[in-house]
């Protein structure tokens, strides 16, 4: 018996006819636990309860399936590489804690074989203590048969930073959630996302930056390309809660639409109950500039190849923000490999 779970809810909602208020996913009644090397159960699961982008129903489903949080062994000054290759249904809650003044560099590579039919849920919970930095890079590139949910929650203390870089390429249906609780003064959350969706692939996203503390800052930057019946919905919310005086939140999205068969939905909310804040959103959605294509074609690059170069550029816009050199090299190699495949 499958469970029908509501995820990625838009708060507050808007007109129902636009079909962006939430997404429903069907999951097995229970999911087996996934295993990541070097993890250990957290001492007190209650201490890791936090809001995430996908929302309460997913967390409740994981709890019902007995998926208790495990703490990953991430050490300061080292790159922690976590490879998740899905071969069957699996769900996992991975916790990372950066102690005061520490820096964690984490790279996750999510894959699955093309012929595997499975469902995967990965929930990542991050606590960034005072003056700490967490650099999380996720490359999400599963095969067509994996239905994947990637869900993140963070709590960011005084002067701490969480920098997220995500690359979405491949898979069929991917749902992604992210929520930052900017509870510390001068805290920072940044999301840089590169995405390519094609051949009927879907990506449903809900990203929330909740500013509780004074002078907290957040940024969401998305660059991507859609073609061949792909669908993407991006919900991005900057929420200024009363008391976050001096906070600053910005969202930017640039999406290339490469043919007439795609659906691109963008829902960038700014919610505000504090007077002294600065919030902004900018979006640019459309086809590639003809003069740019003309220039490339005049240099001997055919139109299809030129479009591939622009697709790749949309990933590189995000990748360029990867702080750790080792992680950067790893991700660039993946992008280069996929270029050769193309």
């Amino acid at each position, binding site marked *: 018996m499958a469970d029908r779970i509501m995820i990625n809810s838009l708060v*507050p909602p808007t007109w*129902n006819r636009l079909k962006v208020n939430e997404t429903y996913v069907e999951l097995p009644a229970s999911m087996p636990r996934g295993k990541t090397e070097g993890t250990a159960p957290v001492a007190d699961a209650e201490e890791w309860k936090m809001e995430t982008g996908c929302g309460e129903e997913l967390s409740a489903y994981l709890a019902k399936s007995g998926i208790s949080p495990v703490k990953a062994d991430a050490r300061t000054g080292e790159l922690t590489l976590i490879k998740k290759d899905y071969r069957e249904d699996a769900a996992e809650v991975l916790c990372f804690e950066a102690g005061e003044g520490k820096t964690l560099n984490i790279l996750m590579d999510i894959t699955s074989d093309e012929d595997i039919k499975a469902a995967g849920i990965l929930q990542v919970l991050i606590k960034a203590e005072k003056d700490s930095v967490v650099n999380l890079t996720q490359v999400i590139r599963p095969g067509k048969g994996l239905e994947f949910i990637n869900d993140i929650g963070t709590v960011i203390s005084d002067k701490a930073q969480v920098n997220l870089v995500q690359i979405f390429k491949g898979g069929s249906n991917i749902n992604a959630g992210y929520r930052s609780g900017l509870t510390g003064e001068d805290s920072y959350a940044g999301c840089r996302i590169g995405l390519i969706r094609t051949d009927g692939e879907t990506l449903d996203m809900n990203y929330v930056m909740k500013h509780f503390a004074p002078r907290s800052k957040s940024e969401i930057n998305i660059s991507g390309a859609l073609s061949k019946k792909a669908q993407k919905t991006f919900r991005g919310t900057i929420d200024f809660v009363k008391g976050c005086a001096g906070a600053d939140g910005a969202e930017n999205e640039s999406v290339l639409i490469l043919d*007439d068969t795609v659906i691109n939905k963008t829902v960038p*909310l*700014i919610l505000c109950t504090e007077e002294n804040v600065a919030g902004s959103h900018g979006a640019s959605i459309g086809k590639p500039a003809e003069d740019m294509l003309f220039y490339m074609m005049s240099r001997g690059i055919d139109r299809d190849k030129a479009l591939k170069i622009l697709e790749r550029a949309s990933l590189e816009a995000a990748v360029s923000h990867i702080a750790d050199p080792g992680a950067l090299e790893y991700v660039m190699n993946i992008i280069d490999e996929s270029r050769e495949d193309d």
Partner: protein
Amino acid sequence: MSEEKTIVDDINRSVYDVIDKEDNATRLEEGLNEDIIRRISEEKDDPDWMREFRLNCLKIYKELKVPQWGPGIDGLDMDHISTYVRPNTRMQTSWDDVPEDIKNTFERLGIPQAERASLAGVGAQYDSELVYHNVMKEVEEQGVVYTDFESALKGEYSDMVREHFMKLLVPTDHKFNALHGAVWSGGSFVYVPKGVKVSIPLQSYFRLNAKGAGQFEHTLIIVDEGADLHFIEGCSAPKYNVANLHSGCVELFVSKNARLRYSTIENWSKNMYNLNSKRAIVEENARMEWVSGSFGSHTSYLYPSTILKGDNSTMEYTGITFAGEGQNLDTGMKVMHVGKNTSSVVNTKSIAKSGGVSTTRTSVQVMPGAKGAKSVVSCESLMVDNISRSDTIPVMDIRTDDADIGHEASIGSIPDDAVFYLMSRGMTEEDARALIVSGFADNVSRELPMEYAAEMNNLIRLEMKGSIG
């Protein structure tokens, strides 16, 4: 002589809050049922098709749910709303024939004066019926039809009315369209023939005087090929301690090569639930312009929508919303690009003050095949204090590759340095902040005729009064 509204200096809300004694010829009991619908239909001497339409809308109304995505409307109890209140007069074409108290109310609001100074025609609705309607002879001679809706329903243009009535705003769209279809009363019908350019605006003004009543006027405007019209809508009501309801419908048909500008200054009292619907369909090479100022009401749902059906059709929306104490104003716009090479330009501003809640809600949809669509949306919000709330909820749904869509939104506060500068030039802090807010609203006031821009600035000053401390 009673107090009159003046252009700039008057910042006295009492102009809007004067209550006339209710001396109604007819006031139907509160609530909504088939008997009430039949009696409204009888009062208005509806043709058979309209009576059946009303009854069908009542069924739809009962089936549909109250929308859950917007501000709460729990304080609106239809069992305590009287849907039809006819004043003790029939429609007149001379102000001299309008009963003294009603005439005085409209004079205080400046309607006869505006008619003399700058309008080609005026319709004035009081509660559920028009009490005055007149159009300049020269405009009439151009073939322009501007009449009350009931006359249009039965006269020479009855087929045209039937062909268009609630075809854009269909009753099944949402519960309050269905309510409107069931109980509508009053409003205007405008037809501008092919090629006719109406050089000065027409205006309808809606005044709801009756306590605990609803106003459900219907406005239908058809601008034929190559024609041009500016239509202005104003509204106000005195404040009561019970809920009043406004649920009007505005349907606009803009034909090939035509242009229509629809301007609204909404200043309902702060016990009003303003659940209004407006939609325009724009044909080839035609242009729709919306200018909207929302200041009043307790709760508003107001999103003028535009269907850019024809190739090369365009739309421009300029709007401002000012939410003060006790107000929850959910406003914005919707546009759907269907034809090729269509374009929309949207510029919204919102101000939240003294605990008011302002939500700017927009949607831009570009349908498959709408090649060459261009849309630019800008939403700016100003938070005047930290007890208010300001939300921006835009949606873009793009389904073609050949589109150029831009969206920008920002939120901020009144800059301290600007207030300091103005105070250093001798202004009080209150005046300095009011001036800055008026400047913020400049995009709308520039689009309005001078008298209306002055009224809007007047309303801003009124709202900003007492904003310090």
